[in-house]
């Protein structure tokens, strides 16, 4: 039983580190934000594992949900500006 929970913890930690690295290094910005939301949900799992249900609720709602929504809104804003710029350059 001890080794099973330890294996779960190590697996979760590896997933955390991998999703964090991917969020920072992926070329496409939209994919980076999606990986960040995945990272946020995995951190919520970590809080549940660490006997901290209050933080798990707050992290899932605020850390992953609201921050993810803010970042996705920013990515959409950037894409809209990029489209307007390309339209202008296409006209010229």
């Amino acid at each position, binding site marked *: 039983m001890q080794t099973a929970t*330890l294996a779960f913890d190590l697996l979760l930690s590896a997933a955390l580190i991998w999703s964090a690295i991917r969020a920072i290094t992926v070329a496409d910005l939209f994919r980076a934000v999606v990986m960040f939301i995945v990272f946020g949900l995995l951190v919520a799992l970590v809080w549940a594992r660490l006997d901290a249900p209050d933080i798990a609720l*707050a992290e899932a709602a605020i850390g992953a949900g609201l921050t993810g929504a803010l970042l996705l809104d920013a990515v959409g804003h950037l894409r809209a500006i990029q489209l307007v710029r390309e339209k202008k350059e296409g006209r010229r």
Partner: protein
Amino acid sequence: MTLTLTPSLVYALTGALLFAIGVAGLIVRTHLLRKILAFNVMGSGAFMVLVGLGQRAGISDPVPQAMVLTGIVVAVAATALALALSRHLLLLTGNMHLPENDPDA
């Protein structure tokens, strides 16, 4: 190793590694949105160290948990403020890189 590998220790170590990864991402990447992502990764790493080390005796410690709860909400407000500032920079200069990192200059 003087401490046994309890779950809280595993996550505290993971938090330390995440913090280091966040610092590297903050310095290396030049796009402002990626800097904000790296900053949030740093924040999550720091929170994991706080709660993980608070629990290393075995009992869950409510004081670091309250601090981290405060920290999560302040981190989202800081992210929103950083996004507002970077959008304003986009409006003024036309790109999402700091002036010294500008690829067009």
